C-alpha cells in the first residue's frame, strides 16, 4: 500500500529537514565561541566571508558584536584595502541594524552599529549608535572605554548629544573598576585629550581623582623603568 510508505517517507524527510535546521542553528550559535578565540585575521575573514554571524542566544550575539567592535580597531583591519575593510564593516552594520531594531536596549549592537557607521561615513547612524549605546549601558566599563575611543577618533562628527554621551562615558570611567587606568593611559598617550580628562576629573569626588592620579604616576614610573 502506498499510504503507510508515503507517510513514512514524509516523516523521514521532515525529520531530515528539522535535523538540518537544528544543525545550522547550532553552527551559528557555536561560531562565536570557536571563532572568537582565533586570531584577528581569522575573525575578520570569517565575518567578510559570511561564515560568522549571529547565533540565536543573546550571548552569542554579544560575542559577535564584540568582535565587530574590537576587530574594527585593530591594526589588521585598518591596514586592509578599503574594499575588504568596507565588506567587514557593512556586514557588521547590517547585522547591528537588524539587532537594534529587534532589541532597542542592546548596547553592544548599538556600539557595533556606531563603529561600522563611522567607517562607512554614515554620520547620523554613528551619532545615534553612540548615544544609544551609552544610554542603554552607561556603567559597563568595557563599553564606555570603547565608546570613548570611538568618539575621540571622530570628534569632528559629534553633535551635542554625542558630545554629552562622550563626557558621560569619561565620567563613568573615573568611577569604575579599571576605569582610572584606562583614563591614565589615554591621558599619557594623547596630550590633546589631557585637558578634557582633567576638566571632567575636577567634577568627580576626591577619591576618584586620587585613583586616577595614582594610576598616572604608576604608568609613568613603569615607562621610566623600561
Amino acid at each position: 500500500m502506498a499510504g503507510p510508505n508515503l507517510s513514512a517517507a514524509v516523516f523521514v524527510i521532515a525529520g531530515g529537514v528539522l535535523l538540518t535546521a537544528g544543525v545550522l542553528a547550532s553552527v551559528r550559535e557555536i561560531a562565536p565561541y570557536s571563532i572568537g578565540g582565533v586570531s584577528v585575521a581569522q575573525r575578520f575573514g570569517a565575518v567578510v566571508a559570511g561564515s560568522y554571524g549571529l547565533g540565536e542566544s543573546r550571548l552569542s550575539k554579544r560575542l559577535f558584536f564584540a568582535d565587530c567592535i574590537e576587530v574594527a580597531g585593530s591594526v589588521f583591519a585598518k591596514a586592509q584595502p578599503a574594499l575588504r575593510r568596507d565588506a567587514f564593516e557593512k556586514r557588521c552594520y547590517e547585522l547591528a541594524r537588524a539587532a537594534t531594531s529587534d532589541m532597542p536596549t542592546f548596547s553592544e549592537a548599538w556600539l557595533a552599529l556606531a563603529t561600522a557607521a563611522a567607517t562607512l561615513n554614515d554620520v547620523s547612524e554613528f551619532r545615534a549608535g553612540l548615544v544609544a549605546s551609552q544610554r542603554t549601558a552607561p556603567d559597563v566599563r568595557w563599553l564606555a572605554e570603547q565608546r570613548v575611543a570611538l568618539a575621540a577618533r571622530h570628534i569632528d562628527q559629534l553633535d551635542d548629544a554625542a558630545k554629552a554621551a562622550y563626557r558621560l562615558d569619561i565620567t563613568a570611567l573615573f568611577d569604575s573598576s579599571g576605569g582610572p587606568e584606562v583614563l591614565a593611559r589615554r591621558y599619557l598617550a594623547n596630550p590633546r585629550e589631557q585637558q578634557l580628562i582633567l576638566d571632567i576629573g575636577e567634577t568627580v569626588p576626591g577619591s576618584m581623582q586620587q585613583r586616577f592620579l595614582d594610576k598616572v604616576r604608576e604608568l609613568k614610573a613603569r615607562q621610566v623603568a623600561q
Partner: protein
Amino acid sequence: MRTLMLGVTLAVAMGGSFSAFAQDVAAVDSNASVPSIEPTVGVCETVSKNPEIADPISGQCVTSTGAYIASLKGLPPATSEQAIADLVVALAPLAQLGGPTCDAYDDEIAAAIRMAASGSTDPEQVASLNEIAQTIDDCAVGETAALIEELPASIN
C-alpha cells in the same frame, strides 16, 4: 527500511554539504608572483635586536621595505594592496618589541610603514597606514594594539 535509509542518507547529505567554518580567502588569488614579506620582516626584526643601528631615513628596515614595494610594481592593484596590508600587519607589532619608550627603532618602523603606504593606490588605505605610522611615531600603541588617535583641541 529502505525508505528510512533513504531519509537518513538525505539528511546526512544536506547537513554535510554546508561548510561549517569556511574561512575567508584572500581578496585576490595568491600566486607565485607576489613576493614574500618574510625577508623584509626578518630585516626589521634584526634591527629590533640591534636598535643602535636603527635609522628612520636610510636604515636597513626602511631600505628593505622600499625594495619590497618596488618589487610589487606591475602587479594588479588589488594584489599589491593586499601584499602591502600583510607587510604592515607584520611590521606594526615590531614597534612594541623595545617597550613603551620611544626610540629611533620605533621611528624607523613608522618610516617603513609610511614607505609601504606610498606603494598603495587606494587613498583610504594610504590614509589608514599613515595613521598607523603616526601612532607609532607618537608612541601611542596600546597593549591591545588598538590605536589611540589624537584628539583635536577641544570638544566644546
